[in-house]
Each structure stands twice: as structure tokens, then as C-alpha cells.
């Protein structure tokens, strides 16, 4: 067994030499390539590995595509004629798959799923394939592809991989790829015997605060069961200890930055959910318990928009934002005209009536869309992560939420401060009688204000559809938090809502590692209840119609 494994590993070495050293380029034989691909269909795992080596050696232009497809479980055999096809990525539920011919990489029609058999892989084969693909990619003209390939190779670096990297280091021009190769070479040097070189390697590695590197260095500091050090050289041990503590410090710093960012993104969600409420509750003094359900309507609008334009998921979110604003804005105007205007100055009654509306809306959604959660697709441009340095990864959807919140906030602020409607809204909220005397149609302003607040709730719903499940209970889970944010930040103050929401998000995330998610949330609620004791006047300035109604 050991012999077989060793033999197979050595098979890969000459092929690396073929790939990267020899400029000679033999015309690949399509027949041999096709025969090998076809043979993959019923080969054993061991044979598949040998075939993979042959495919690489064939230097056929599409060998990489075939091997990548095999790695991604996208290589299938058609039961009818035993032809092997690459399939385009599709989700699990799709009944048929689009086929791609491996020789031409052109479309080859489609086939129902049950007429195809997937070509399986096992862990060992996948590991070998990953390294093979990485070797292809090392020669890729795009630096990003080469960088990813080096990172992939670092996950399981062996003698042959190190040799490859060393060869690449001589010709590589991109500085980021070179830095990554240096890490690989340093890791390889650490296994060597030259003390001088090993100390240099540790110095290189100390500047890269990565978990994998920390583990490798920490392993040098461990002791054998008999009490002797794993690492015999004392100088290496000292250097490694210093490097580990330096990495730990850097990782703590990055961890803090990451927590801060998580807090900001959670805070952004809270602000988005609360900012519409800051208009209806803060400016108008209307307790709208159906606010959460308006957000839910916004999320369902996103779902419907995606149903209407399934071919343009990327653009659907951009269409959904105005659509949700219009839908929930109209719902808000309807709510104000039919119910809320009869209850001005009676906040407790408003609370009850709008709660009744929220129940009706929930049940309405259940009747139309069923009680199950609906799938809202995340567009490709919103998924993935932004890697900043070695220890900081930021997911794009969180980043976009923060940006989106800022945009919504800025637009809302501009509407209130720079437009005629905003002027009238502020006038009516400060002194209704005087505003009416100046010719402001206060009834119309009421409806528009409520519509604006509700529309913002719908826009928040679009954002939430990307973060949580879209179901009838979506609104309920946010309503209490939103009220807390508005009350905490100070009623009738948009900046207060922004700062209140962000600080609640950050405090929540800071508490989470120590107290757990649920206890953290409870602590925040309790802290808020206590905080309000200290600042009741400062937090509820009795201005606007809320004061008139008292």
C-alpha cells in the first residue's frame, strides 16, 4: 500500500517538469484525449487518477476544464451512449442539465437528470485533482488565478509542490503572487535542516498572521511525551515563540476589526429596519405595529420581482428596491387613510389597531404564498468575500448592507431637509395649526409622511430578503428591535436612530463571544431598559404631534 502510494506520487513529478520546463509543444491528439475522457466513465478511483495524469500529459487545451468539472462533480456519463459530458452548474432541483462537449467546449444540448450518471470522486482523488488544477493555473496569464493556485497548493504542500513553487518564483512578476510563493517556500524550508535558512523562514512567516502558519510555528514549540522539545534547536524555538506571539497580536487586532465590522453590519440591519419607524413613530408619533409586516411585504416584493425576471437575477435586486418602495408605500398610504387618521392623538388605540393590521397582513401572505419560506436568490455580485490581508475576510453581502444603509439614510435625510415635502413634513410635525394656516394641506402631508416611512420599510425588506428567510414571520422578529433602536436613539431624530442602531449592533456583537447570541440579546434589552431610566427626558423629547396628543 505504502509502495503504491509512493509510486503514484512520483508519477506527478515528471509531469510538472513537462508542464513548466519544456517549451516544446506537441500537437495534442484529439483521439487519445477523447479516449481518455471516455474511459473516465467506468474507471476505478485509482484508474481515474492515472487517467488524470495522462490527460495532463496530453497537453490538450481542454484538459483543465475536464479535470475541474470532475473536481466540481459536473462530469457526467450519458447512460444511452456512454458519452462523457461536462454539465453547466445548476441547482439541485433542476430536472435537466445543460451539456457541454468536452472536445469542443460547445453546447451539446441538454438531458434529463435521470439519463445521466455522475462520475464520482473520493477524497484522495480530489486532493490529487486539486493540485493538478493548481499546477495548470500556475501558468495562467491572470495574476488572480495564479494567486488562488498558490494558496490552494499551500493547503497541502509536498516536495514536488515546493519544487514547482521554486521554479515559478524565478519567473513570477506579480508581487502578491511572489509574496504567497515566499510563504510556501518558507514553510517548505522549515522542514529542512539548515538552521540559518530556517530562522529566515520564521522571520518571513511571522509577518503573515494566518491560522495555518500559526499552527505550523506553534508545533515547533511543543514537547514530546518524554519531556524533550520537538524542536532541538533552541534559537529556532525562541524565534518561533516570538513569531507566534506576533501573529497572535496581529490576529487579535484583526479579530477586533472584524467584530467591529460585524457589529456595523448588524447595526445597519437594525437601522434599516428602524429608520422607516423613525419617520412614522418619531416624526408623526404613530405607533405602527405593522411596520415589521410592511418590511415583510418588501421582502415578498423582491421574491415576486425575481419570479418575473428569472433571467436577470443580478438586476432583480435593483428593480426590487423601487418596486418595494412603491408597493409598501401605497400600502402605508392606504393604512393611514383607512385606519390611522381616525386615531391620531390616541397612541394606545393606534398601537392596537395597527397590531390587528399586522395579523391580517401575516395571514394574507400565508394565504397567497403559503406559510413556507420563499427562496430569494442572492445575485452573484453580492456573494463571495473580500480578502483584506491574511486575517481579515469581509463578505460582500454584509459590506453592501452597510453601504446600502448609508445610501438610504442619506436619501431620507435629503428628502426631509431639501425637498418641499420634507419641509411640509417638518412643519406639520412641529406645529400643525400654524402649518395649516400657512396653506399646508396637513391631511395630504400625513398620508405622504406615512407612505414615505412605510416605503422605507419596504426597501429595508429588500435588504432583509438577502439576509434572512422570507416568511410570514419575518416582520415579527424585527419589530421589537426596531422600536428599541428608535427609543434608544431618541424619538424624532434620524441621526439618533443611526447612532443608536449602530451602537446596539456593535454592543451585541461585542457581547456575543462572551455571553452567546441569545444571552447577548437579552443583556442588550435589559441594558436598554436600565438606560432609559437614566435618560427618559433626553430620549423622548416631547415635540411634534406626540406631545400634542398627550
Amino acid at each position, binding site marked *: 500500500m505504502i509502495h503504491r502510494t509512493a509510486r503514484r506520487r512520483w508519477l506527478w513529478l515528471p509531469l510538472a517538469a513537462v508542464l513548466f520546463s519544456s517549451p516544446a509543444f506537441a500537437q495534442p491528439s484529439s483521439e487519445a484525449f477523447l479516449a481518455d475522457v471516455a474511459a473516465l466513465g467506468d474507471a476505478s478511483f485509482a484508474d481515474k487518477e492515472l487517467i488524470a495524469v495522462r490527460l495532463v500529459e496530453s497537453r490538450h487545451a481542454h484538459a483543465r476544464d475536464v479535470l475541474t468539472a470532475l473536481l466540481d462533480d459536473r462530469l457526467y456519463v450519458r447512460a444511452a451512449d456512454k458519452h462523457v459530458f461536462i454539465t453547466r452548474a445548476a441547482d439541485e432541483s433542476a430536472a435537466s442539465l445543460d451539456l457541454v462537449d468536452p472536445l469542443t467546449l460547445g453546447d451539446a444540448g441538454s438531458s434529463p437528470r435521470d439519463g445521466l450518471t455522475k462520475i464520482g470522486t473520493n477524497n484522495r482523488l480530489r486532493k490529487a485533482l486539486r493540485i493538478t488544477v493548481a499546477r495548470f493555473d500556475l501558468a495562467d496569464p491572470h495574476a488572480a488565478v495564479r494567486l488562488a493556485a498558490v494558496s490552494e497548493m499551500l493547503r497541502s504542500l509536498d516536495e514536488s509542490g515546493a519544487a514547482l513553487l521554486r521554479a515559478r518564483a524565478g519567473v513570477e512578476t506579480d508581487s502578491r503572487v511572489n509574496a504567497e510563493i515566499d510563504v510556501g517556500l518558507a514553510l517548505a524550508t522549515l522542514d529542512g535542516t539548515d538552521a540559518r535558512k530556517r530562522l529566515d523562514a520564521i522571520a518571513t512567516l511571522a509577518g503573515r498572521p494566518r491560522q495555518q502558519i500559526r499552527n505550523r510555528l506553534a508545533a515547533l514549540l511543543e514537547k514530546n511525551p518524554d519531556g524533550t522539545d520537538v524542536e532541538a534547536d533552541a534559537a529556532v524555538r525562541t524565534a518561533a515563540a516570538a513569531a507566534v506571539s506576533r501573529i497572535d497580536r496581529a490576529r487579535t487586532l484583526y479579530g477586533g476589526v472584524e467584530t467591529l465590522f460585524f457589529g456595523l453590519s448588524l447595526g445597519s440591519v437594525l437601522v434599516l429596519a428602524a429608520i422607516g419607524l423613525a419617520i412614522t413613530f418619531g416624526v408623526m408619533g404613530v*405607533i405602527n405595529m405593522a411596520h415589521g409586516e410592511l418590511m415583510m411585504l418588501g421582502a415578498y416584493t423582491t421574491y415576486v420581482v425575481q419570479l418575473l425576471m428569472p433571467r436577470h437575477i443580478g438586476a432583480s435586486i435593483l428593480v426590487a428596491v423601487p418596486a418595494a418602495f412603491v408597493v409598501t408605500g401605497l400600502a402605508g398610504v392606504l393604512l393611514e387613510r383607512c*385606519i390611522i387618521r*381616525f*386615531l391620531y392623538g*390616541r*397612541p*394606545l*388605540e393606534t*398601537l*392596537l*389597531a395597527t*397590531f*390587528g*393590521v*399586522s*395579523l*391580517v397582513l*401575516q*395571514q394574507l401572505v*400565508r*394565504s397567497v404564498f403559503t406559510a413556507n419560506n420563499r427562496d430569494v436568490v442572492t445575485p452573484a455580485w453580492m456573494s463571495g468575500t473580500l480578502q483584506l490581508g491574511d486575517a481579515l475576510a469581509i463578505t460582500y453581502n454584509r459590506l453592501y448592507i452597510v453601504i446600502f444603509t448609508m445610501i438610504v439614510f442619506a436619501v431620507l435625510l435629503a428628502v426631509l431637509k431639501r425637498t418641499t415635502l420634507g419641509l411640509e413634513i417638518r412643519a406639520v410635525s412641529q406645529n400643525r395649526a400654524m402649518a395649516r394656516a400657512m396653506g399646508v394641506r396637513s391631511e395630504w402631508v400625513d398620508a405622504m409622511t406615512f407612505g414615505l416611512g412605510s416605503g422605507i420599510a419596504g426597501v429595508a425588506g429588500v435588504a432583509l430578503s438577502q439576509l434572512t428567510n422570507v416568511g410570514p414571520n419575518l416582520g415579527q422578529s424585527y419589530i*421589537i428591535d426596531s*422600536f*428599541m433602536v428608535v*427609543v434608544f436613539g431618541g424619538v424624532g431624530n434620524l441621526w439618533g436612530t443611526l447612532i443608536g442602531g449602530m451602537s446596539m449592533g456593535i454592543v451585541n456583537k461585542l457581547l456575543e463571544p462572551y455571553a452567546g447570541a*441569545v*444571552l447577548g*440579546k*437579552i443583556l442588550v*434589552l*435589559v441594558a*436598554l*431598559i*436600565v438606560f*432609559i*431610566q*437614566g435618560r*427618559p427626558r433626553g430620549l*423622548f423629547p416631547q415635540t411634534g404631534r406626540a406631545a400634542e396628543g*398627550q
Partner: protein
Amino acid sequence: MEGEAPGGASLIALLVVAAIAVPILNQLVPASSPLHVSTYLLTLLGKYLCFAILALAVDLIWGYGGILSLGHAAFFALGGYAMGMYLMRQIGARGVYGDPVLPDFMVFLNWHTLPWFWQGFNHFAFAALMMVLAPALLALVFGWFAFRSRVTGVYLSIMTQALSYAMMLAFFRNDMGFGGNNGFTDFKDILGFDLHQDSTRVALFVATCAALAAGYLACRAITRSRAGRVVRAIRDAESRTRFLGYRVESYKLWVFVFSAVLAGIAGALYVPQVGIINPSEFAPINSIEVVIWVAVGGRGTLVGAAAGAVLVNYAKTFFTGAFPEVWLYALGALFVLVTLFLPRGLMGLMDLVPRSSEAR
């Protein structure tokens, strides 16, 4: 709205008749007779009466004190949990794991000793004290903070809702020692009587009737007392009452604590009858449903609150059985219609004499 609307005497009379007639119809009239009251119906009625006690508690502070609590389910559930803890200890070694002291869920969580806050709950007297003290303490602490800093109106409502929500999240946690999301169930007996026996059910029903009658009389005594008039004055003009020299915070606090105790007793009576208590009892929607019972029945009339609780719950039982998808529409519409058109509820509808000073 001075004094109590008529109907108090008829409520007491009705309860006395129910406490005598229903057990007879259940125990002595044969099952074949059309007059027979099944144990299912008896338990259902008992449940409604527990809700009526809870509605009284909410009406006392909302209808008379102007404090809209959206977290009264928390006090109800606390009383229920205290009763549940007693009932869990009564199971003894008859649980699935047969541990003589530890309830099943603790054995399941690999706990070896009873937590300190479970000590003493094997004695009914201690448990009964806790059914009153636990909600009272929570109300005292929360109310002291809230009223002292003059948190009023909708802010107070939202704070009570947040309190109830926080309690729900806390009780969902397994390591709190209250059975996590499963709560307590599978009770065996109470005070040595088998809970599955019809006679025990009857006794619980009679006890609930008595508790409702006592609760009603106590609330009526409070509202008719001098302190009750001050509370009503606070509802109508809080600042003016304060300027007249009354300690507004103290009056509010004591009526709030009494209301919480009443809610706790309702919860304690509710648990042995339905046979389960879990954290969903803390859910904010439960508290809000109580408010709608009171609003439908007639805010500021104790009889109306009790009647509203029974009527709305009967409607709920009917709708969720016959047309489950219609119930939320009906409940939502009820909220809207009652607040828009019946600000004084069904009692206001019955009261044909128009009154000039309508309470807000």
C-alpha cells in the same frame, strides 16, 4: 365612568351557579344525556376562566390605571412556571429516567444535583408562595424602575413587550434550568390527587371559579377604594394628580404589582388544567391577545374584561377548529373594528345611556 357598571352581582351569581352546576352535570349526569358536560368541555371552561382572571388583571391597570402592559403574559407564565416546578417535583421517580429527585430534562442534560432555585418546590405551600412572589418581584423591580423615571404611555407598552420578549428568549435556553423549549409537561398529580382523574379536574374548575370571583371582588374593592379613585385620576390627568400632592409612582407601582400577582395566580391555575407550560407562553402575541379581550369586552369595566376573555376565546376555539386560516383575519379585524367603532367594547354597546365624559 364613576363606579362599576352593573353586572357585578350577576357575574358572581353566574360563577356560583357554574361552580355548582358544571360539576354536577359532569359527575352525576350520565354521558348519554344531552345535559352531560364532558371533561373536555369542563377543562376548556376552566381555561377560559383562567384567561378571565388574566383579563381582570390587565383591565385593572389599563382600564383603570391607564398603563397598557404588553407583557402581562410574562407574569402569567411565571405563575405557571412556579406551579409547573411543583408538579414536576411531584412526579418523583415516576419519570422516564426514574430519578427520585431530578426531573427528566435535568437527567437528560446530565445534571447531577438540583439547582438551588428548585429547592423547596416539593412543598405546595412554598410553591404557592412562589406563584405569587415571582411575578410580584418582577413587577416590583420593573415597575419601580419604569414609574420612577416616568416612562409612560406607549414607551412603557414597548418596554413591557421587550421585557416579555427577553424572558421568552431566556426561558428558551436549556441551561436556565426550566426545561428549555419543551418546558414542563407529563404531570402526574397535584396535592396527592391524580391529575387525570375527572374529580381532580372538577376540583380545579371549582377552584378557578372561586379564584375568579375572589379576583373580581378584590379588583372591585380596589377600584371603589380611595386609592382606586386616585389611580383613575392618574389615568385621566397624571400631572394634575401629582401636583395635587399624590405619590403617583407609588400608586401605579402597587396596582401594577397587584395586577401581576393576579396574572400569576391565573397562570398557576392554568398549568395543571392544560397540562403543559413552555416558553411560548411568554410570546409577545399572547400579551397582546389579552389586551384585545379587554378591549372587546369593555375597557374599564371589570365584568366586561372577564366576559371579553371568555367570548374571544370561545370564538378562537370555534374558528381554529372550523376555519383555521380565518382566525387571524378575524382577530385582526376585531382589533381594528373594536378600536375604531367600539372604543368601550361590548359593555359600551350594552350601556344605552350616553355618557358625556368618555374615558380615553
